[in-house]
């Protein structure tokens, strides 16, 4: 039992570093309980740690990895484009790094020496031949150029872009030609478009909704398609990436505040019904409020989609944890349960994909509606 305590505390201290893999850590914490009861030498035997694999799957990378290890893996290598001090480095394929992520392999391109550490590309300082590391395992003799690579997430977004254009441009041309009832693809997409227009945009923005409709429709279908593409096996975690949700919520911030009318700004800088003494408190709160609304949007989408990916990956990892801790029989008997759970989670994730696209669009419409509402 004491051994178990040590191991869980070790794991617990690790979990403090990473709140986003909370669920997976619970699963990790459980496996040694069973393991310590059944095997004598559980302390010596390393149980499978799913965290690196999960983190790898939900992070962005320079290649689209499907299965296998190293040079034998099924991987699509994507173009690397870097920007360093006003100079473009690339594009070149990420296969040049030969799957190295520890800074060992030095890539030479146009006289630049590049290494990759944990998915991040560094440019070695002039005259340096190899990457050196400090005691926190950070590269000490290199600078990080801005990475404009077509990463896995960008490629996934481009794939979603192609799908969206295919679906909607075909539907659009069909709608132009056919004046009678919609058929085929259009009959599936049209109700969704009308749902966004009539149930999300119109009731929240009011009479000026027409101006914002193209943006909000694009927003809804962009999030939805990326959510759904993200659910395909081997796909990227696009809408669970903070950079992407940041951009989307920043656009919300811009659109909301640019279209904000007199009464919107009046409520911020001269909140009605607030005594003068409270103004120094209220005005900063209102100003912070401008940013917290889109910030919540950013976090909500990012956390929801990432959490879904983490849960599914954790459930699959359960099988490997059982194998390393309990042996093959346990792994085989556990796998149907894990697969059923994953199936269940996948169905929930389909719901979440729609739900999050709906919520993001709904709240953006609501913010625009609040900023443009006429108080007369």
């Amino acid at each position, binding site marked *: 039992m004491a051994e178990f305590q040590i191991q869980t505390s070790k794991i617990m201290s690790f979990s403090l570093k990473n709140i986003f893999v909370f669920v997976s850590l619970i699963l990790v914490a459980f496996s040694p309980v069973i393991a310590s009861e059944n095997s004598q030498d559980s302390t010596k035997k390393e149980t499978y740690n799913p965290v690196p694999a999960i983190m790898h799957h939900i992070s962005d990378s320079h290649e689209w990895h499907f299965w296998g290890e190293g040079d034998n893996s099924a991987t699509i290598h994507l173009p690397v484009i870097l920007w360093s001090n006003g100079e473009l480095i690339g594009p070149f394929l990420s296969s040049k790094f030969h799957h190295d992520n520890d800074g060992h392999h030095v890539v030479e391109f146009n006289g630049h020496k590049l290494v990759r550490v944990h998915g991040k590309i560094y440019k070695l300082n002039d005259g340096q031949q190899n990457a050196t590391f400090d005691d926190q395992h950070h590269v000490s003799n290199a600078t990080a150029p801005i990475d404009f690579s077509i990463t896995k997430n960008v490629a996934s977004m481009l794939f979603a872009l192609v799908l969206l254009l295919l679906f909607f441009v075909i539907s659009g041309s069909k709608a132009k030609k056919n004046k009678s009832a919609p058929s085929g693809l259009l009959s599936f997409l049209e109700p969704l478009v009308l749902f966004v227009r009539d149930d999300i945009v119109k009731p929240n923005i009011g009479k000026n909704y027409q101006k914002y409709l193209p943006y909000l429709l694009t927003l809804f279908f962009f999030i939805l398609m990326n959510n759904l593409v993200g659910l395909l096996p081997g796909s990227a975690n696009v809408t669970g*990436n903070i950079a992407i949700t940041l951009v989307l919520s920043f656009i919300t911030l811009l659109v909301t505040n640019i279209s904000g009318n007199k009464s919107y700004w009046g409520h911020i800088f001269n909140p009605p019904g607030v005594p003068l003494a409270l103004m120094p408190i209220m005005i900063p709160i209102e100003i912070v409020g401008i940013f917290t609304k889109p910030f919540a949007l950013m976090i909500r989408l990012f956390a929801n989609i990432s959490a879904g990916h983490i849960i599914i990956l954790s459930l699959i990892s359960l099988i490997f944890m059982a194998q390393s801790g309990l042996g093959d029989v346990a792994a085989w008997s556990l796998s149907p349960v894990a697969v059923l759970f994953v199936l269940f989670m996948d169905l929930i994730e389909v719901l979440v994909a729609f739900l999050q696209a709906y919520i993001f669009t709904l709240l953006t419409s609501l913010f625009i509606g609040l900023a443009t509402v006429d108080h007369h």
Partner: protein
Amino acid sequence: MDSMQLVTPAIGLMFWTVVIFILLLVILKKFAWKPILKAVDDRNNSITEALSSAEKAKAEMEQLSANNEKILQEARIERDSIIKEARAIKENTISEAKNKASIEAEKIILSAKEQISNEKMKAMTELKNEIADISIQMAEKIIKSELKDVKSQKKLIEETLKNQMN
């Protein structure tokens, strides 16, 4: 594993997101949202139009049938009035005929009466004349028989003179 990496937005990824999102917005706005929403609005309008024209046609039909009813009603009234008129004419004719007949009858009776009285007068006059003739003849005969002898003639003269003397 650097956990901060998860919540650190990558600038390149943000750049590509902006590019892809704007591209998507521009293309879909022109080639998808406009035609799809236009088709929906057109369809809505045509449905509303069709409904309102159907409503109009229905109202027209109602108007038409009401008109028909009105015309029928008028025709009925006219028919009744014609019948009434005809009946009145008939009654008039009959009563007139009756009147005429009775007047004619009276006239006939009157003239008959007149004729009768005329005939009667004529007959009376003839009878008078006849009686006068017969009386004269009788008187002649009587006179003749009475004045057969001279004595009786003398007696008559005397008597007449006597009457004259008185």
